[in-house]
């Protein structure tokens, strides 16, 4: 049983998703993200898929669900590190994660979030 580490960096939660997670670990991740978000009140979640070699329909749909859930909880989600082989497979499966914001890597993902967080803050003033 592997647990996905969730780390808080400033106003962002970073979850580094490991390769070969079983279904329960995937669902556990979803629960932990929601719980942590509620508890800490952060506005951004970054899911790092750099080491994930297979994304099937179960994980694919979960990523969509997590993004939607986070949005309802007032947070933005960015998914980074999707491998080329995974990207091509996902699209062929018919899951192109339309509702999800993506970036190439953690660095770009963080910059993307910081940019929108600034916009969010301006909106609140």
């Amino acid at each position, binding site marked *: 049983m592997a647990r996905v580490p969730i780390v808080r960096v400033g106003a962002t939660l970073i979850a580094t998703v490991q390769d070969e997670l079983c279904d329960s670990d995937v669902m556990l991740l979803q629960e932990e993200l929601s719980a942590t978000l509620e508890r800490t009140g952060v506005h951004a979640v970054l899911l790092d898929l750099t080491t994930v070699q297979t994304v099937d329909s179960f994980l694919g749909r979960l990523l969509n669900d997590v993004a939607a859930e986070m949005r309802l909880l007032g947070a933005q989600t960015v998914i980074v590190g999707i491998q*080329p082989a995974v*990207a*091509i497979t*996902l699209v062929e499966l018919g899951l192109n*994660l339309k509702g999800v914001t993506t970036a190439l890597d953690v660095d770009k993902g963080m910059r993307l979030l910081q940019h929108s967080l600034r916009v969010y803050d301006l909106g609140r003033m």
Partner: protein
Amino acid sequence: MVAEFTNSQGELRGMIEEQRRTIVELQTPVIQVWDSILALPVVGSLDTARAQDMTEALLEKIVQTGSEIVLVDITGVPVVDTAVAKHLLDTVYAARLLGAEVLIVGVTSRVAMTLVHLGLDLGSVTTRTTLAKGLQFAFARLGIEVLPRSNGTSPHALNKLTT
């Protein structure tokens, strides 16, 4: 003797695979035209195998260069039908998953009419008629401006300038 044979078979296979990759790279050159901007001229018909190779080559280049905008130029594609449109969309979606935005350029009025006639709405995909226009869009998106030099160098003097 058998071991030698299987070894050289393996080598041969590796060589063939390497040559295949070279052919793919030559057929679908992905060019970095600017920081963060890639151009992919497609010449000839786009069948499934070619589209898959093209997408693979493009994604690898996106990873290598960290580019965020891709200009796929279909000026050289003779027929744009439902299948070709689907291949282009698949490429767009895959590149998006890597954080890159894909523009389809070289869309002529004939192609536009065909797509509309086929009931194909490229939806959220940005298109432009020329690569140059696509580049303009890309610069604007990246917050880049191209300005003439302030020292007023005359265009006629260009061929006298040394690099």
